[in-house]
């Protein structure tokens, strides 16, 4: 069984305003090519879990593995490097840099990684934008395009360094049903065609039902997993 992302006994506490046990003994894994969603009521800790998995939140107990490498306890700079190279993010709010062009936004993480020449990065970025059907918007300012387009740009940016896994915090939460559908189809295609792992926190039941697996959370614990499409390893 090969997990891309795995947690072992993760606990998380909020200390302010009073001590609160948010996550209780979370142990689970995401396989290569798996499209999983996390569901649960507000305040059940699903976003908190996602930010721990994203390596941005380092204040937890337990162990986090990416590609069988232990990430727990690494320095901020190392984790930034790993986020840059291995993890892509899509948020509910699109979080593009408004002063930069769409193309620049997509190119930024690759330029930070610095493994390719500027021309290659630009070619990659235009390819990703083409994949998402917004190549024609490439030279517009990021603040000048519609919400659905912004979310697709954010996905293109998440893909630019060919990460192992893409994480989303309610990526369709702010979109109308047509755009939400569009984003879902893009995710589905990436998971099937490129064997990309996806982990998405969502409130949208319809969205969750179409993913491979729903992880249901309540009160900081994983209640159960609903599998819609079992991958080989989970036989």
């Amino acid at each position, binding site marked *: 069984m090969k997990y891309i992302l795995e947690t072992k006994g993760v606990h998380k506490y909020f200390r302010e305003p009073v001590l609160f046990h948010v996550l209780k003994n979370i142990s689970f894994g995401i396989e290569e090519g798996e499209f999983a969603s996390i569901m649960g009521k507000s305040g059940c800790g699903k976003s908190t879990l996602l930010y721990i998995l994203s390596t941005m939140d380092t204040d937890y107990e337990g162990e986090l593995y990416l590609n069988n490498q232990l990430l727990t306890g690494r320095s901020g700079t190392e984790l930034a490097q790993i986020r840059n190279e291995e993890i892509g993010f899509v948020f509910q709010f699109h979080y593009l840099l408004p002063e930069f062009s769409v193309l620049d936004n997509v190119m*930024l993480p690759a330029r930070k990684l610095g493994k390719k020449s500027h021309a290659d990065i630009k070619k990659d970025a235009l390819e990703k934008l083409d994949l998402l059907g917004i190549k024609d918007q490439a030279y517009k300012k990021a603040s000048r395009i519609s919400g659905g387009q912004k979310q697709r740009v954010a996905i293109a940016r998440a893909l630019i360094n060919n990460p192992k896994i893409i994480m989303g915090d309610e990526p369709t939460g702010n979109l109308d049903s047509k755009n939400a559908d569009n984003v879902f189809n893009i995710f589905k295609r990436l998971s099937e065609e490129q064997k990309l792992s996806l982990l998405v926190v969502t409130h949208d039941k319809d969205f969750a039902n179409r993913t491979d697996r729903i992880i249901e959370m309540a009160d900081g614990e994983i209640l159960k997993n609903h599998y819609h499409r079992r991958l080989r390893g989970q036989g």
Partner: protein
Amino acid sequence: MNFRVIFDITRTHLTTRIKQSAIAALGVTFGIGTYIIMMSFMTGLNGLLDDMVLNRTPHIHLYNEIKPSPQQPIDFYAPLAGQLNVVHSVKPKRSQVRIHNALPLIAHLEADARVQGVSPQATAKVFYLAGSNELNGIISGIKPLEEMRLFNFDEYILHGSPKDLIRNRNGILLGAGIAKKMSLAPGDRIQVSSTNGGIFPLKIVGIFQTGLAEIDNSQSYVNLKTVQQILGEGSNFISDINVKLWDMEEAASMSKVIGEQFKLTAIDINTANAQFETGTSIRNMISYAVSITLLIVAGFGIYNILNMFIYEKMNDIAILKATGFSGFDVKMIFISQALIIGFIGGILGLLLGYGVSVLIDHTPFETEALPTVKTYPVNFDPLFYIIGISFALVSTFLAGYLPARKAQNIDPVEIIRGQ
């Protein structure tokens, strides 16, 4: 590190809010510009005043003062010692004006390592005769080259040059007041009559002006030898010795030793111009204080603008961190913004400072005391420009560092979840 990406982000940030950036840079520009202007003008003026007083005044002035002896014969009479002896109507005894054994004394002073140069003078009281007019005055014999080298004598000269005195043994540099009163110009002849009755024709080679009417109306300069001839004395007749030292601070102690050793009156420059040094250092202090205050104010401006900007850009910072930029990268983005503002503002400040300095340098400034100075004095010392740009960079770095460190420590999770 990938400086290109960071620089691109920095550039985009700066250019998209060009107004705020320009205002921050203008703060630095005015700070640095004012610093340059103040320092150039202040030190220029200080230099001028130094010239007027310090550089033209001998550090030690030696002469024979006519004064009554402090000890009267009765003081040497043993039986009356310890009693209250009063002598009425004490008069100074007639003694020679010249310095005794002056030439060996000059040689002795010149051999001293602390002495930069020695300039002997001989003074005679004379009548100036031109046409039917007579004017009384003083004529000083000098060594023109030494006077120029040590005491910037040439700065007094309106027409001609001290060198003309050397070329023309019977030349005279006439005080401006005398020339005006007697309607004389360079090239004219003037006769000088000494107190012992001799009349000497001299040729006017130049006019000098000190700005002090008393001196300009009576004083003239000729070659040392000429005065000695007018007085009918030998080449060892010297009435004053002016000494310039390498280090002015030694003047007081040296003058005391020389005065006692050779039984001469020795006046040092510090006694003559005690308050002068204080004035110079206070003026320097004030200009530094004002400049530093201006730069600190400019620094607060930058701090403020960057701080505000970081609050505006919380989302950007969060997204940069989420996509793999480290805290250090984010800090560099904001520090480089501060440094670019400091650099551009600083360079403009140097240009502003230089421009205004040139303007001041060309502003007419006429003063009787300084006939050779026609415009305000400005000191174009490159050191001010180096200090200026360094200060601009250091102060903007410090002003940018605190907000940048705050940006470095922003927790992206808090921002993203806070939405």
